[in-house]
């Protein structure tokens, strides 16, 4: 669903057409994606449109890269601190 939405905003019905799943099942998936912050839903006319929020994914990945590097550097700093301050 996320791959489809990454190409274009879709109504829940159009989304459902791509899956051999009942419309309530699709709505359930959409609700989870919405709660998780990956998509936004707008009611336009009689349709519900789903749009991918790129922000959610990108921020998550950005934090992961940041922290991986952050902890590596902090642990090194701790090592230097321990080695400089105390005898081994």
């Amino acid at each position, binding site marked *: *669903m*996320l*791959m489809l939405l990454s190409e274009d905003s879709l109504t829940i019905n159009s989304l459902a057409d791509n*899956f*051999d*799943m*009942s419309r309530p099942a699709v709505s359930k*998936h959409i609700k*989870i*994606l919405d*709660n*998780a*912050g*990956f998509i936004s839903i707008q009611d336009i006319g009689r349709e519900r449109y789903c749009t991918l929020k790129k922000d*959610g*994914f990108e*921020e*998550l*990945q*950005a*934090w*992961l890269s*940041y*922290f*991986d590097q952050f*902890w*590596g550097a*902090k*642990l090194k*700093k*701790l*090592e230097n*601190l*321990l*080695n400089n301050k*105390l005898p*081994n």
Partner: protein
Amino acid sequence: MAKIIKHQFFFSHPQETVWEYLTKSELMAQWLMKNDFQPIVGVDFQFRTGPIPSLNFDGIFYCKVLEVVPFKKLSYSWKSGPGEGKITLDSVVIWKLEPKDKGTEVFLEHRGFAKKENLDFYNGLLHGWVEKFQNIDKLLNAAHHGNTNS
């Protein structure tokens, strides 16, 4: 992409010493960040550092001590956001210390990242699990109703 951050580091110092540097506020400030940490379960504390606008981060990590096993394990929640009480990062940091010959092995895990569980679930879906569930659904429906979902 790894979704849990894991680091392992050996320090040629005794376990008690390393533990001190993980649990005393003034010592932590020297290598980690300024903080008002106390090694007491349930206590809220903060780390303060420079803001990072590109990460929607105002420079404050809001944390709560979750677990303390003296000299062995330390865990705290680690949250942040753009400010005004909004939280966009919700994670957990876990430290484990193991005594080793001539030093201490430190294991760090930084996990949670808010929507990680949902991300995993949907990664799974993108890799074909949904087809398996649909097949089960079809089989169940055929057994119960003698027809498939429209």
